[in-house]
């Protein structure tokens, strides 16, 4: 799957493209297949996201790269601050 993630312009918080808007929960992210570049260009131009990029994920929607999993879960050394209840599992890619 191909997801899109960026940061909210005003807060900087990590956001994921849901198909109709942006969510802070990576579980809401949808597969954009080949439409990533067009969506990113439109959303950046509208100032709804900052630094957006496509993210490779497995069939279950789990980001493949550790960097994206850390973005999804929060810092691995402060799991108390993460917004995802399944932080350790996300970090482990499960």
């Amino acid at each position, binding site marked *: 799957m191909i997801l899109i993630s960026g940061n909210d312009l*005003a807060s*900087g*918080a990590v956001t994921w493209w849901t198909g109709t808007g942006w969510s802070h929960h990576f579980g809401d992210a949808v597969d954009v297949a080949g439409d990533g570049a067009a969506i990113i260009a439109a959303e*950046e131009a509208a*100032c709804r996201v900052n630094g957006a990029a496509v993210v490779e994920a497995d069939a279950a929607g789990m980001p*493949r790269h550790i960097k994206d999993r*850390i973005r999804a879960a929060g810092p*691995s*050394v*402060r799991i108390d601050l993460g917004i995802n209840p399944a932080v350790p599992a996300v970090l482990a890619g499960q």
Partner: protein
Amino acid sequence: MYRYDQYDQAMVDARVAEFRDQVARRLAGKMNDDQFKPLRLKNGLYLQLHAYMLRIAIPYGTLNSGQMRTLAHIARRYDKGYGHFTTRQNIQFNWIKLAEAPDILADLARVEMHAIQTSGESIRNISADPYAGAAADEICDPRPWAELLRQATSFHPEFSYLPRKFKIAVIAAEVDRAALRWHDCALRIVTNAAGEQGFEVYAGGGMGRTPMIAFKIRDFLPAGQIFSYLQAILRVWNLHARRDNIHKQRMKILVHTLGEDAFRTEVEAAFTHILTLGSDFPAAEYDRIAAHFTPPPFDADAPDDMDLSDPDFARWVARQVVAHKMPGYAIVNISLKPVGGIPGDVSADQMDAIADIAQKYSFDDLRSAYTQNLVLPHVRKADLFAVWQALKAINLVDTNRDQITDIIACPGLDYCSLANARSIPLAQKIAQRFADPAVGDDIGDLNIKISGCINACGHHHAGHIGILGVDRKGIENYQLLLGGSGAEDISAAKITGPGFDEDGVVDALERAVNAYRAQRTPGERFIDTYRRVGMDGFKEAIYG
């Protein structure tokens, strides 16, 4: 310490207003991030993995208690209750909202602080000896010169769009507690045969992907000409550096390309010219600044002896307390390296408590060190027990200064968008493996420095043992380095060989430490043994 007058305050206030304007333009969509990025970076604001990160300058590592309380306030009000002291004596907050950044800068301006030029291709915050004004071995307090240069390099019109960042350090002792020659421009205050003070000037140091140690460009520069000389260095670099490859634009690369002699010839010619322009600050201005750094009212009768009957206290004193230039006083090092903790991280409550301690016991004076620790520079020996107890109440009495668990680590992939691998979990695992204080004492002085990418914020090139995180096909991988130093015996570490995974590098490091313990002669530190036996004496132990 230095206090702002109306001019300093007006400049910082104007900067806050300017940034408020720029943020409003960005939020309104009048600028894209390409245009906004250099402007936010000049105010220390990065976009990191989870949020914006704000890096606040702590000029030459000096803070008072009111400033520390403001940092605690920022941690609580605008962040998630903590901050991170960096390897350049600054502090970073990890969870900043762009819309609130101007308010934070306004709060900082109220206590004479700022984030000006803490990032971007500009002249960065000037670092200095954290023991300045207290060290028994300094020839003078280097901070008046650091403050003079802070002003001279703030909003410098010619040098605000430099080829890359530019870092300056100033010390005034033989012992180097500021990683001096790892800076682009390194200044050591010395006295010449005629008894005049001046600068030994070094140029072209830096870490990053091409580590270089600054070379001595001048044996002795009359102190009052330092701004002219600095501008000459900057002008030669600004005019001649490459602009086509960001990895080759640091000044060290130009020094290497031209050669030291040719670089010096260019700088001296530019200096001769700039000296005629009258841009050096006059002696009266140096004197005005220096008057802010007169020693605090020490008690000449402060007793020099203390009660060391509590063994835990005695151990802390032996490791964390060092000689002060005044009898009856001591310099206290506060370790921010609890075993299992995050190097350099301090909670808002701890910040407030440290501020109280500094106010009550250290003439309202606090320092940050590039080792990501804090310093109380002027504590009466008679108060050390009370200070220890107060620090104990906030869990900051670790006794590991310069030992194997006093690890420098950058934020790494847990926070940083540039990182390739995590640094902090590695520091935690290493500290846990060597947590036994008896083991730490047996191993002795050993500096471990961990960077999560080639940019080297964790000073891995300067570690007795360095670790560099890399991305190996999407998997975190770690290279081990040996033989670096950030002290007066400066040297660049060398890679041992193939890299390791996270647990593998901890095991490899342990094997290197065991090789040291097996080969050392009495009194030898790890680095001494490495220098005597070379990489070959360790390689087999590491790779077997």
